[in-house]
């Protein structure tokens, strides 16, 4: 569920007729008013329906859960009494998404700047096209590529990280096994969210008004200084929005994670240790075999993912709003 794209704008009002020009509203206006108002209401109804469904089914499951739903590192809804919790899933989802963001956001900004401000048009256009192609690859293909190609290659990187950066704790490898871990998932997710972040930031960078760039140039700014003084500040809210779109995808990504990760219900701060899990991966892996109650339990975990996504989006909007008076939109 990606809520970053589903903000509802209030439906536009039909022009008001006043004074001597008062007359019957024209049919085109009324039809358009009805359509746009209907679309707005429809969106709210859908959101309410999803939230209601999730909450209702989750309520059934959580009320019978014998353990604390939020802190338990176990998933056994079929047991007697049922014991299940989302601690591992929340941890795995957040950690893999954070790794993905740390890798993808700077690279995406770099590519976007190269396309918008450095590359000659001859190169920029095909490059932008290639980035678009990256977005068109289905996620199951990414998963297969990750499992078959990326994992063996990352084994070497993992031992290298363990040897030289093991002292950082997070890169210390305590368990045996191939690189089917959260770190690999994070890298794969980074590649998957790269195109959307790149495309949105590139569009924003291209919209920086010429006069702001010229203001910096005329002061004797080099190209990098122009980017630092004019382009990045202007694109700031766009970069945040783009990152949230990418984060939304990373949080909810299912197939690629399910194919690459070898799941286990253990929380480990050592990113290179195999195991862990994410909300979406866990639902995909267990949904088919679960009974009615097991499905309710999975839906309860889905509700948590939904809430996390909402919170992340809300936080992003708050950051953008707080800086509004300095935003480039005032120009």
């Amino acid at each position, binding site marked *: 569920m990606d809520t970053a794209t589903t903000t509802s704008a209030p439906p536009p009002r039909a022009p008001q007729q006043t004074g001597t020009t008062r007359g019957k509203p024209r049919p085109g206006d009324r039809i358009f008013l009805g359509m746009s108002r209907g679309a707005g209401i429809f969106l709210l109804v859908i959101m309410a329906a999803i939230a209601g469904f999730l909450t209702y089914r989750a309520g059934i499951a959580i009320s019978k859960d014998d353990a604390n739903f939020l802190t338990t590192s176990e998933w056994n809804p079929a047991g007697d009494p049922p014991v299940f919790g989302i601690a591992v899933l929340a941890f795995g989802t957040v950690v893999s998404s954070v790794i993905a963001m740390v890798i993808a956001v700077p690279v995406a900004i770099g590519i976007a700047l190269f396309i918008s401000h450095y590359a000659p048009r001859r190169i920029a256009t095909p490059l932008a096209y290639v980035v678009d192609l990256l977005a068109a690859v289905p996620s199951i293909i990414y998963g297969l590529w990750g499992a078959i190609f990326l994992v063996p290659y990352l084994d070497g990187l993992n031992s290298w990280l363990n040897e030289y950066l093991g002292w950082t704790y997070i890169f210390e490898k305590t368990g045996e096994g191939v690189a089917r871990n959260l770190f690999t998932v994070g890298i794969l997710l980074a590649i998957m969210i790269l195109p959307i972040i790149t495309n949105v930031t590139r569009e924003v960078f291209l919209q920086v008004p010429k006069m702001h760039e*010229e203001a*910096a140039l005329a002061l*004797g700014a080099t190209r990098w*200084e122009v980017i630092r003084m004019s382009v990045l500040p202007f694109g*700031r809210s766009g970069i945040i929005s783009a990152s949230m779109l990418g984060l939304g995808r990373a949080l909810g990504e299912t197939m690629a994670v399910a194919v690459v990760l070898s799941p286990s219900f253990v929380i480990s701060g050592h990113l290179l240790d195999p195991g862990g899990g994410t909300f979406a991966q866990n639902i995909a892996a267990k949904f088919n075999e679960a009974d009615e109650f097991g499905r309710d339990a999975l839906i309860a975990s889905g509700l948590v993912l939904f809430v996390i996504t909402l919170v992340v989006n809300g936080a992003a909007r708050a950051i953008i709003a707080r800086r509004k008076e300095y935003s480039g939109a*005032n120009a």
Partner: protein
Amino acid sequence: MAKRIDVSGLTAYYGSHKAIDDISMTVEPRSVTAFIGPSGCGKSTFLRTLNRMHEVTPGGRVEGKVLLDDENLYAKDVDPVAVRRTVGMVFQRPNPFPTMSIFDNVAAGLRLNGTYKKNQLAEIVERSLRGANLWNEVKDRLNKPGSGLSGGQQQRLCIARAIAVEPDVLLMDEPCSALDPISTLAIEDLIGELKERFTIVIVTHNMQQAARVSDRTAFFNLSAVGQPGKLIEIDDTERIFANPSVQATEDYISGRFG
């Protein structure tokens, strides 16, 4: 330090289109020189060749020489970025950095040039804002965004930003065309004060403005749309407006065309 500008045989292109053709003139230090002429005659293009901003436009290139005192701005080993640090520019539409405070806007050029101590920076910012006749209006809200000021105040902020780095020359590209008459008057008064310290070149569509603020006036024209712009004549402003030596200048000034 105001410097003399000496242009000889300057031709500028946009791609294969020749925008201005073979322009030569001298601009005296500590004076105001106005460029007038009909739209498309290349006066803005010419202005932008004086700080090497013309080549920023894709396809823009220049032939000829621009001497600042004795240094050719278009010599091979000259860095255009360094040129722009000594030749400041004010644009048609006020363009303070929208994401920066008033203080940071004025300090922007200084921070590019090097490091300053905090109190040193504050001192230069105050001096520049005073120099731009803006200090009294903004001294209580230096940390507020520059985009919150009125258009005329924003333009004076841009002038403060440009003079903060003590350029040799100040170029102004129709600085009042987006402003109301009162703000225009404020800027014109300011130009009168600034010319004691800087060499000022101003492009204007407003002939009364050229007559009011400038010491010398250059008239540009083009023979037809699509043809390159040419310098018709440059002379003391009084002479240009009272008794120009070329008929076309008189026609333009008296409103017979353009």
